[in-house]
């Protein structure tokens, strides 16, 4: 197995607070790696430094062997790392389909000239954008199909907003997909459905996934490996069972500072 995404000693501080304190992670091609940890452990910050929202203070981040440190978020996405947000961020006034079509932006080229004179290649490109966006939406079966695609995103139910956000990320045709608490706010049935969908993302779309998740049934059901973080540091790494039974992890979740 080759590591497609490597973090080497990544640090990020906000003022005096070390949100990431020497994080070293290898994400192997084709695996699903879950990141768990109590609130404020630095999980979302990890996503933000990978995707270029923040620049790390120290350390390096390599994607396919090339450093992505210092790149703007749109450049990182174009290279093939896409993401969702812990608090769903859609384009609420745009339709569901248009949201997904925005995902195709970085894989297409048409500019001002193409818009004004929509012939030949522009027309074919627009058709392709639409086709792939629909395909991304239909990854979730009928949930985002049919009339829903013409509705503005803000009328969607909470669970569907999360699905749309994932579909939009899929529409960017990434190699690595980062999901930040994808099941947060979903009911048990929806959570289980999404667990299966996350597995399908790897099996059917061939994605490599880094998933932040609080629901342990989901973590157990999707992860090839699990990393537990606390105070900006990975404190345990291994299979689900290894990490779940790690005394340091249990201590971290119980809120006491890990001892010895």
């Amino acid at each position, binding site marked *: 197995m080759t590591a497609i995404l490597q973090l080497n000693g990544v640090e990020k501080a906000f003022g005096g607070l070390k949100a990431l304190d020497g994080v070293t992670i290898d994400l192997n091609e084709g695996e699903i790696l879950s990141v768990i940890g109590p609130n404020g452990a630095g999980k979302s910050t990890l996503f933000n430094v990978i995707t270029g929202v923040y620049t790390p203070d120290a350390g390096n981040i390599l994607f396919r062997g090339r450093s992505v440190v210092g790149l703007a978020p749109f450049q990182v996405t174009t290279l093939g790392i896409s993401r969702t947000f812990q608090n769903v961020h859609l384009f609420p006034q745009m339709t569901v389909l248009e949201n997904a079509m*925005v995902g195709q932006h970085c894989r297409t080229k048409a500019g001002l000239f193409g818009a*004004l004179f929509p012939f030949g290649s522009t027309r074919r490109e627009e058709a392709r954008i639409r086709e792939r966006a629909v395909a991304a939406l239909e990854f979730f079966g009928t949930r985002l199909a049919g009339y829903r695609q013409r509705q503005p995103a803000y009328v969607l*139910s*909470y669970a569907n907003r999360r699905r749309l956000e994932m579909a939009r990320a899929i529409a960017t045709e990434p190699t690595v997909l980062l999901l930040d608490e994808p099941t947060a706010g979903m009911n048990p049935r929806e959570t289980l459905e999404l667990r299966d969908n996350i597995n399908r993302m790897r099996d059917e779309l061939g994605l490599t996934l880094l998933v932040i998740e609080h629901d342990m049934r989901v973590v157990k059901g999707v992860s090839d490996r699990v990393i537990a973080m606390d105070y900006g540091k990975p404190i345990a790494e291994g299979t689900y069972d290894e990490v779940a039974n790690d005394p340091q992890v249990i201590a971290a979740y119980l809120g006491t500072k890990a001892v010895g």
Partner: protein
Amino acid sequence: MPAPLARAWKPALIAGIVVVYVSAVGLIEQFAEVYAIGTQVSLARVLLLLPLFLAGWVATRTTVERGERKVLAMPQAALSGAVTGLVGGAMVSIVLLAVDAIDPDTIGEVLIAVSTKLLGIVSFDQSLGTGIVLWLVLGAVVGALGGVVRALSPGARRVVLAGPLTIGVLAILQRVVSTAIKELGFRPDFLYDSKTSGLTWAGGIAAAVIVTLAVVGRDVLRSRPEAAAAPAARPAAASTGLGGFTTRQLVQGAVAIIAVLALPWVIGTALSGTVGTVMIFILLGLGLNIVVGFAGLLDLGYVAFFAFGAYATALLTGAQVNTTDGAGDPAFSLGLNFYVAIPIVVLLAAGVGLLVGSPVLRLRGDYLAIVTLGLGEVVSTLVTSKWAEGLVGGPQGMRDITGGDIGPTDFQNNPRHFYYLALVFVLLALYTSWRLQYSRVGRAWNAMREDEQVADAMGISTTRYKLLAFATGGAIGSLGGALLAIQLGSLTPRSFDVNVSILALAVVILGGLGSLRGVMVGSLALVGLPGFLREFEEFRPLALGAVIIAIMLLRPQGILPNVRVTEDIADEDRDQDAWARAAAGQPATETSAVEPA
């Protein structure tokens, strides 16, 4: 508090304040002699009673109480409306009594519009006592009408409102319509009274009846069973017309084209000039709509592009600068043909867009607004300055701008000819906006408007698309400036102050951000209306302010918002959502995954 009163007091209070306000600023007196119909119904009186009608309408709204939708049935609706109107009328009466007690002319020393004369007008030209009785009675009646109209089914409401709205439109457009009738070779006497210039009772009622019958007829035709079944059969019928259009669409299109082409010959020379100005502002609106409506960049200095387009056109086509002793050659000038100059102006304006855009790339929202406001002022100051006097004439401006004429046309002196030049420009800008709206570029702009950081995270270079928005918007705005230069033949910096930026923004906001139809309607309402009915001219700033505040409060998406955004969401859905959330104490979850067949 009894139920009708509980609903009534707020709308009534607001209506009362509106009535007092429009009176106190002089609007009522201005319109006292402008007759809508006969000599009894002046626009002033309509304006005095309309707030109470609207208050009755608002008071009768459907409310959600403890999770239940409360819809008022007809008798209660009439009652709630009447109570509202009565309370509103009573409030106006109290103010009238107070003003009378203090003495209107004393108040007039502070609020200059207030006078004994105004008091008389607001008392319906009766004694104060009779006036107050009238306010109470008319208030209750008008308010009740508002409530009743609200309680009607949408179909019935359309029928009932068709007549009054027809009269209203004909009254407001009295100059336009009577000129049009004259230009067509008829005498407008049957519709408009030549003495009051308002509608005649017979003409007004006849027009109202005809339009009402037309609405009824159309509704009856639509509700026939065959017609109701038609939408399903439409795909088959659609292929019968030319090039995929139905016959109906072809006819409508042809009528629209003929109407647009014939317009200047119907409305007369003077009004054609007004329409020309409307079209200049449509261009400004379309350009600004790209920046603000599509890309979400609040630009308050848009006048910069207007000025640039005007002055660049003047310089490239070889105009003269005004000097203290006549005219002189500017420091730089090219005697280019107008049609060669225009593409150059547009390209240069796009360049100015990049220049304006680059320093403000990192700014958002309010900060962007303030900095662009400043940049707009910089341009106004520059063209006025001593430093630029040799180039653009400083405060004296420029003159002898000519060009564009082909053969017998005279764009400068014949507003009808100018109309066609402006039409070509507007069509170009419309085509550009329309194509961009649903393109990859348009989607990138919209995404950026909705959430800049997320757009970035989804692979959109926000820097690039911000600059592209400023450049495209600036290019279209410069076309407006070029037209102004041709229309006036001379330029002074006074035409390019901050008011242009504000008016252009109001045009965009009134119609609904992002909506192309909205820009046209907004420009007609804010630029055209004052030209059609001169009495509006003085109150444009007031109208601007009122319109903007009202829209922000009532319809944040504008009057004619970009339809695709709202078409699927009926009021009902929103009420239901609110109800469901309140009932569950949490965000509404999915109700059903089943798709309607």
